[in-house]
């Protein structure tokens, strides 16, 4: 049984379509990256998974049950942390543990996991943004979840905190916890996730592994004169496998052909200043997937 299955999921607010005909499946044990720019519909989708908002149409199953009913082994942090300011971090977690019927002994354990054990007795109102975010993740971990849904978990964290959070998510994933991670940070998703779904304007544009999205590795060649290098490369590997990208050539060939191509170019009098294996990063993929509808403005957001 897949932990999360959405079929034709749609949410409309009047004439505004927040999510449309979304099909999404998260497999057991994987870290799934739900990627998209701000306002793409990520949080709306996650709220529907958790039963916080009702879909206008479509079906959602979490652990095989309708939203809200299958939350026994599910932990979630949705759109930033929210706690009671007059209680300490520890007391907040005790309250939420009680709501979920979770043993109070888990409270100190999860505080330790997010490195807040030393500040657990301080009032939540005195926490920094990063500490609040970590407490939010701690609350999501209270139930020792088998499915963890995290919406932008590194928001507000400093670089060290972000690295710690990614490390924690990787550890949870390695321990068999299924993680659905929403983010607008491409690097974050690329580092942590096994599979990625890209959402744009409420629609799932693509869903694949990070490796498949990047595609087969090729070669990137910086040479002069470029046009002559391009003509030689086309003759060597076929015109369809050569594209010019600014001051460089991208060749869709196996990277182990680097020495052969370099020798041919140099022998023909072309000066080669760089030749190296080249993979597309997710930024390029995202741009390609969404450029028809949205242009490059979202890519600027995604660079975070």
């Amino acid at each position, binding site marked *: 049984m897949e932990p999360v299955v959405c079929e034709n999921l749609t949410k409309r607010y009047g004439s505004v379509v927040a999510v449309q005909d979304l099909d999404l499946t998260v497999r057991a044990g994987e870290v799934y990256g739900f990627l998209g720019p701000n306002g793409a519909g990520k949080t709306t989708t996650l709220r529907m998974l958790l039963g916080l*908002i009702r879909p206008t149409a479509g079906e959602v199953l979490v652990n095989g049950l309708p939203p809200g009913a299958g939350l026994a082994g599910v932990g979630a942090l949705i759109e930033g942390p929210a706690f*009671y*300011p007059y209680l300490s971090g520890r007391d907040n977690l005790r309250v939420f543990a009680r*709501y979920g*019927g979770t043993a109070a002994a888990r409270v100190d354990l999860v505080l330790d996991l997010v490195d807040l054990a030393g500040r657990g007795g301080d009032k939540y109102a005195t926490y920094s943004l990063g500490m609040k975010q970590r407490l939010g993740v701690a609350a999501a971990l209270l139930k020792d979840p088998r499915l963890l849904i995290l919406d932008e978990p590194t928001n507000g964290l400093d670089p060290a905190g972000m690295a710690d959070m990614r490390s924690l998510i990787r550890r949870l994933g390695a321990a068999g916890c299924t993680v659905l991670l929403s983010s607008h940070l491409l690097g974050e998703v690329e580092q942590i996730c096994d599979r990625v779904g890209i959402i744009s304007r409420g629609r799932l544009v693509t869903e694949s592994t990070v490796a498949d999205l990047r595609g087969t590795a090729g070669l990137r060649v910086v040479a002069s004169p470029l046009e002559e290098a391009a003509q030689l490369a086309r003759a060597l590997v076929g015109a369809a496998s050569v594209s010019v990208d600014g001051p460089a050539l991208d060749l869709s060939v196996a990277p182990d052909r680097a020495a052969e191509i370099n020798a041919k170019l140099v022998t023909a009098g072309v000066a080669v200043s760089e030749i190296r294996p080249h993979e597309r990063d997710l930024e390029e993929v995202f741009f390609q997937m969404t450029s028809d509808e949205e242009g490059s403005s979202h890519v600027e957001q995604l660079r975070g």
Partner: protein
Amino acid sequence: MWNSFVAESYKLVRRPATWLLLAIAVVLALLFTYVIPYAGYAGGTGGPRADLGLAALLPAKLVGNSIGGLPVFLGALMVILGVLTVGGEYGWGTWKTVLTQGPSRLSVFGGKLAALALATLGGVVVLFAVGAAASAIVAAVENAPADWPSILDLAAGIGAGWLIAFMWAAFGGALAVLLRGVALPIGLGLVWLLAVQNLLALLAAPLLDWVAQLQKGLPGPNAGSLAAALGSASDTPGVQGLVGGGQAALVLSGYLVGFCALAAAALRRRDIL
């Protein structure tokens, strides 16, 4: 629902605003029921309750004195308590944190109502306790007879006070759910309780017969009628015997159930944004 009730009770006990409201309720009740009337009596000045004199301050009047403030000014504090208990989740955005722990919306709301029921009962018992202490002191100082109400009268008084207080708290809770917040529900709740009810009673009802009849079905006048039936002085704001005590208790119970059901239905149906 038990887990939600325990969690809600813990939050209520640990929340400073809860104790502030109780402290204000105690101070207001003591000040306007005992301290100021006793000062007037001791100084021999006239006033609204001067004709009642010392008798109005003695233990025999404990029941009426203790619940007399609930139809209006103590009721306003109960509305605030209800709004804070339910509306705080909207203000802090904590509904999502609560609900993602797994409890259903209705069990959380049921826990809130149960905690509010306990808190309002506790508040009414405290009002009776401080009233008892104040009246005992007055009786001792004045060498007046300390004729305490019977246990049955005390139980009926505490029950009636709790019904009024819980009804107002549920009114506040319903406003909080319907308006999804804290500030506006408190504002509108207080406007209804302190302004609209008084305008209806003092201006509209004497002029229009249908308003006078309508009053008999509204929560405030029924709260005042129940208090009056149990001995609250009729010169206390909001206390007026428009209907009998039994009918008033029935109407208030209806409002209590109605406010709870309305809020539960809205909370269950609406998206948590």
